[in-house]
């Protein structure tokens, strides 16, 4: 312990590798966030919140190089009519992106809005800062301080097509930090899609503020590159009768930590967050969810399914916090893993913290192997073993995938999952 005084701390080493974009409306928030990171320090292995995931590769000064991944698979969401916004290794690619104009929506780049007054000033870093209590999320504060770019999306009406954020990985040592802010006005509605590996190491924060009756849909496909690492955060605040629905597919990636911090502040709000992950081999995937109910008659659902093989590790830390007075809360949480062999592992900490009595909250967590009886049945019907296993695996993942409301998007995800399973058959 004593030698730390003479050596530079890991937090300082990491911060020294970054430079804060200067000037503009976000400066105060960035400085505040930098101070907060220093005060709390970056995550360490012994932190309770990092019990099951080693943070070192996410916090060390420089990203570990990640080989680029080549296959002939067409990028996901390619056939969907959308507004495409492309980042290559964390840098906006204007040529590859569509025109950012969309009816009912204003889209700007964080790096380009220099005006002193901007609507995002009231949000940038604010939801992130709020989400630091009661658990510290230093990587998110680091993001607020040092993000180089991102999009600022203001949704004022019903968006006619989804906004699609595409992240490409081209340089083996890229280390990207992006910060998006999304504001959904009362009665407005938008779907945001995300896909791609982004960089060798990717730190991303998305702050979402949904006003009363606003609707926000989010579908994300993380993955492709085997060696990439990612730490992502979603911070969302939900107003009265608003809806938040987020689904994440994770396939591959040596290290992923997805945190989702939701605060239901208006009565009758609905928040669903779901994830399906498939991991083969050197794969560590961590879903960490924190849902706070601070209003009456709200509903929250967390559905997470993990399929793991060849030594892959799946982690789930989920919490439902019901504040005093948040009566009639309906909170549900399920985390399940399917371990396809003996080397893989599933580590879960599903929590409830409840301070109101008229609530119905439940959580379930299971882990096990594929159902031999079901497998036998399928095989006895002439289905080859590989296909039968895939079928049962898809059935296992269905509860999570079904959280995607849009049928086209759901089918696209199912197709990706099926293709992945076929490629990764033993």
């Amino acid at each position, binding site marked *: 312990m004593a030698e730390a005084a003479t050596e530079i701390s890991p937090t300082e080493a990491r911060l020294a590798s970054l430079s804060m974009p200067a000037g503009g409306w976000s400066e105060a928030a960035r400085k505040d966030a930098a101070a907060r990171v220093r005060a709390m320090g970056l995550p360490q292995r012994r932190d309770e919140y990092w019990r099951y995931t080693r943070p070192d590769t996410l916090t060390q000064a420089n990203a570990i190089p990640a080989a680029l991944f080549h296959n002939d698979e067409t990028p996901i969401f390619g056939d969907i009519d959308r507004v495409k916004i492309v980042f290559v290794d964390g840098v906006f690619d204007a040529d590859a992106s569509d025109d950012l104009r969309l009816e009912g929506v204003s889209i700007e780049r964080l790096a380009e809005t220099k005006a002193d007054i901007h609507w995002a000033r009231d949000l940038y870093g604010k939801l992130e800062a709020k989400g630091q209590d009661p658990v510290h999320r230093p990587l998110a504060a680091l993001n607020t301080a040092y993000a180089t770019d991102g999009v600022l999306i203001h949704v004022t009406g019903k968006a006619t097509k989804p906004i699609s954020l595409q992240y490409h990985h081209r340089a083996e040592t890229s280390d990207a930090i992006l910060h998006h802010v999304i504001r959904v006005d009362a009665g407005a509605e938008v779907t945001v899609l995300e896909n791609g590996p982004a960089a060798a190491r990717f730190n991303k924060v998305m702050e979402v503020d949904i006003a009363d009756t606003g609707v926000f849909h989010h579908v994300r496909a993380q993955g492709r590159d085997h060696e990439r690492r990612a730490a992502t955060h979603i911070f969302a605040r939900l107003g009265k009768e608003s809806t938040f629905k987020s689904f994440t597919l994770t396939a591959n990636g040596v290290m992923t930590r997805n945190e989702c911090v939701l605060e239901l502040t208006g009565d009758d709000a609905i928040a669903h967050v779901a994830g399906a992950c498939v991991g083969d081999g050197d794969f560590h995937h961590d879903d960490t969810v924190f849902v706070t109910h601070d209003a009456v008659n709200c509903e929250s659902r967390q559905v997470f399914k993990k399929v793991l093989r060849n030594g892959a590790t799946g982690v789930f830390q989920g919490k439902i916090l019901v504040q005093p007075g948040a009566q009639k809360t309906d909170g549900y949480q399920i985390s399940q893993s399917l371990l396809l062999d*003996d080397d893989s592992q*599933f580590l879960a900490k599903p929590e409830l913290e409840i*301070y109101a009595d008229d609530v119905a909250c439940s959580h379930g967590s299971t882990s096990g192997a594929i159902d031999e009886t079901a497998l036998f049945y399928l095989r006895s019907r002439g289905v080859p073993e590989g296909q039968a296993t895939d079928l049962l695996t898809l059935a296992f993942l269905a509860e999570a995938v079904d959280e995607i409301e849009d049928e086209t998007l759901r089918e696209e995800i199912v197709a990706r999952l099926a293709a992945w399973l076929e490629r990764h058959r033993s």
Partner: protein
Amino acid sequence: MTALDQPIETDLQVKEGVDQETVDAVREVGGKYKYGWSTDIEMEYAPKGLNPDIVRLISEKNEEPEWMTEWRLAAYERWLEKKEPKWAMVDYPEIDFQDQYYYARPKSMEVKPKSLDEVDPKLLATYDKLGIPLKEQMILAGVEGAEDLTDAPRKVAVDAVFDSVSVGTTFQEELKKAGVIFCSISEAIKEHPELVKKYLGTVVPVSDNYYATLNSAVFSDGSFVYVPPGVRCPMELSTYFRINAENTGQFERTLIIADKGSYVSYLEGCTAPQRDIAQLHAAVVEIIVEEDAEVKYSTVQNWYPGDENGKGGIYNFVTKRADCRGDRAKVMWTQVETGSAVTWKYPSCILRGDDSQGEFYSIAIANNMQQADTGTKMIHLGKNTKSRIVSKGISAGKAQNTYRGLVSMHPKAKNGRNYTQCDSLLIGDKCGAHTVPYIEVKNNSSRVEHEATTSKVDDDQLFYCRSRGMDEEEAVALVVNGFCKDVLQALPMEFAMEAQQLVAISLEGSVG
């Protein structure tokens, strides 16, 4: 020093024509803590505070051999290096470990009584009043052949611990005939040093955690059980812990060894007087279960919970762990936690032997300002090991109740099975119910299932009970008893009735 409270009497006076039974019944319904009275007895204390001299003094008072003193002193050194755990969801003022007595024994126990006949009548009366008539039991035991009568009441051997010392142990002779050793741990250290040396600290290592380390340094008494191979213990064993002295911590140590193919059922009860200042209780219970052996450990924890405003009460920091060392070993923890101001307790099972089994059934009730953070750990190491957790938490008043547990399937624990059900019930909108399970599965042939729910007392059920003429408190008690049914059924008969009543009493004043 006679700084003892007078027995607390309610304002009920025995009027002419009213029998004592009625008075007692009324008093009970009053919803007050039933065991809050204290015994006015001359005590002998070790000086306040904790240092190596106190550790040596305790060891000396117990007439311990050198190795035991050294063991304690080593523990004390480790304790100085350790930090008090802060991760539990409990909040209490800083404990001044130097402002406590670590040893208190009735003056009359200075010379250890050879039999219960020599025990101070005041002490015996105390246990009588608690519902444990030590002497009568002995007299009954004297009736030769009583055990052959099928309709004779079931016998329970009792080790009665009063503050820092064991007052006496009943049925020792009869147990000896069966080969079972049941005595206080201080006696065991003297009489059976080989067994104590072999097992003490092997399940809960000296430096396991802050309180276990403290206990290792200063434990004064507790119970010791050894059941030899193939023996089914002829009666239930029990220890009754009574804290009486003020400002005194109780640090009991229990060691239970079930040798190959043996069986024992052990019950533990505890109460303390009602006092304004919180008192510390830090116990360690170690259970060793060898091949094919089975141990049932049942607790009704009813330490003084403090008053409605959180004044006084026992801080209950307990480490309990069972080690299933042999194949097909089985252990079952059942606990009814209704007392204590603060509870920090996780009776655990290490399932080391193949096909070994661990079970944990718990009811934790927290009312008024009580805080409970309790649960279990099931560590699956052997093949085909099974565990089952059923936890029922009830919160009322301004209480906080947390279930915290770990289920761990090691890579080698092939075909492990775990089923966990933890349900919470909230009565009133000022309390809290929390669930913090850890689930770690490291092989794919194991199956782990965890379910938890949180809800309030069902209005329809209440309405039904009310429509049948029950008052609201009775109705809630009945619904809660239904909610706890799975656990109550797992209790030995003797405890089941008491526990049911306790559930009702603990919730009194929580409605409306």
